[in-house]
């Protein structure tokens, strides 16, 4: 049985050390700018921090994967080239890229560093994945969260690279790397500026009766009663009034988290090479708990034991979990 790699998120150097100490095989992170898809204030790494973090991980036999997974707008490609140049110089173990221009640049200038295809590229067919492998020598594809386990197994037989699947964390229904909802409200692009619902546009307004309204750029995304836990105003997870319902409802989707821990044995058997935990924006406590739980789970599966699934529901968004499309297409 192959031993799948556990790929864990780090929004800060301390989260990276926490993930490594909790058992991550690889940690992914990004620079403090638009070159990565979690471009939030207070998150991500300076050049100096990344250098020290690479040293910390490598000293313990772990890997650092650099996310350079947004799409450079025309005429502004220097920032993305710099990210590849610096990452290469600091000795990261792989670049996670989505844009074909960035992939091409990395292939030509940093050919000794592995390329992973980001989920943001939304490559879901063997033809698409083989294109990236052939043109840019992509070694691993991070699969969009739309395939069932059996589809993943079939796909693995038709592509020449490793497969990585998300197993825990945020779960959006949009076509990966193509969502423009934030643009409509804030003028900033999730895919080019790297930020969905930028913090500077977020407000929480008090409602009569003690509730809270979560707002983005002046638009109310959701209203919470006094006893409800107020969520972050992510547009696709808000409650909206529409002509077809009397009361506001989750018109796109309910805020739920992906949790594939029950499907891990199937995914290992399906030939998945790496499991990814989402959440570079989450706390160190979250990283520690989730990474440790999945470490235990993966080790148990590999050694042939029954995995003891830790209680992770408390860490999921809104306390609700889903196996998404992985188990069945009927999840929506």
């Amino acid at each position: 049985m192959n031993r799948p790699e556990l790929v864990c998120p780090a929004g800060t150097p301390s989260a990276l050390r926490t993930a490594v100490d909790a058992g991550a095989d690889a940690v992914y992170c990004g620079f403090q700018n638009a070159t990565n898809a979690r471009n939030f204030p207070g998150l991500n790494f300076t050049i100096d921090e990344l250098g020290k973090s690479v040293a910390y991980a490598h000293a313990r036999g772990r890997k650092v994967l650099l996310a350079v997974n947004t799409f450079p707008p025309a005429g502004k490609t220097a920032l993305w080239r710099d990210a590849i140049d610096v990452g290469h110089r600091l000795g990261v173990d792989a670049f996670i890229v989505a844009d074909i221009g960035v992939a091409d640049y990395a292939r030509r200038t940093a050919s000794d560093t592995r390329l992973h295809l980001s989920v943001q590229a939304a490559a879901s067919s063997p033809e698409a994945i083989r294109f990236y492998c052939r043109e840019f020598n992509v070694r691993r594809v991070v699969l969009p969260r739309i395939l069932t386990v059996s589809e993943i197994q079939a796909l693995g037989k038709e592509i020449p690279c490793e497969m990585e699947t998300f197993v825990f964390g945020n779960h959006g229904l949009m076509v990966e790397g193509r969502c423009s909802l934030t643009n409509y409200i804030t003028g900033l692009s999730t895919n080019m500026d790297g930020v969905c619902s930028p913090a500077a546009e977020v407000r929480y307004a008090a409602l009569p009766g003690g509730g809270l309204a979560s707002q983005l750029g002046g638009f109310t995304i959701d209203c919470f009663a006094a006893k409800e836990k107020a969520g972050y105003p992510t547009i696709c997870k808000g409650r909206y009034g529409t002509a077809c319902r009397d009361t506001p409802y989750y018109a796109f989707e309910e805020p739920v988290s992906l949790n594939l821990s029950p499907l891990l044995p199937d995914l290992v058997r399906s030939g998945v090479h790496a499991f990814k935990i989402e959440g570079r924006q989450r706390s160190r406590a979250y990283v520690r708990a989730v990474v440790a739980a999945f470490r235990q789970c993966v080790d148990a599966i590999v050694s042939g034991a029954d995995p003891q699934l830790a209680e992770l529901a408390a860490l999921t968004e809104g306390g609700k979990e889903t196996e998404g499309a992985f188990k069945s297409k009927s999840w929506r």
Partner: protein
Amino acid sequence: MTTARLTLGPVLCHWPPEKLLDFYARIADEAPIDTVYLGEVVCSKRVPFFEDHYGEVADRLKRAGKKVVFSSLAEVMLKRERI
């Protein structure tokens, strides 16, 4: 100075064929558009409703001087979508 050119993206709505035919007839006859993207990009299950009409729509748009580009699905997953 360059002249601005207008491009119409593929229709994302699931309109009945008559409505779609009428829409493209008006684009051909009335709209100052240079390039028209045709094709189903959202869901392969919708394709049978309109696939017999693409030829005539493309011909009509081309006769009206438009450049026609055929678009494929944004997200390809199933075997039947790959053919």
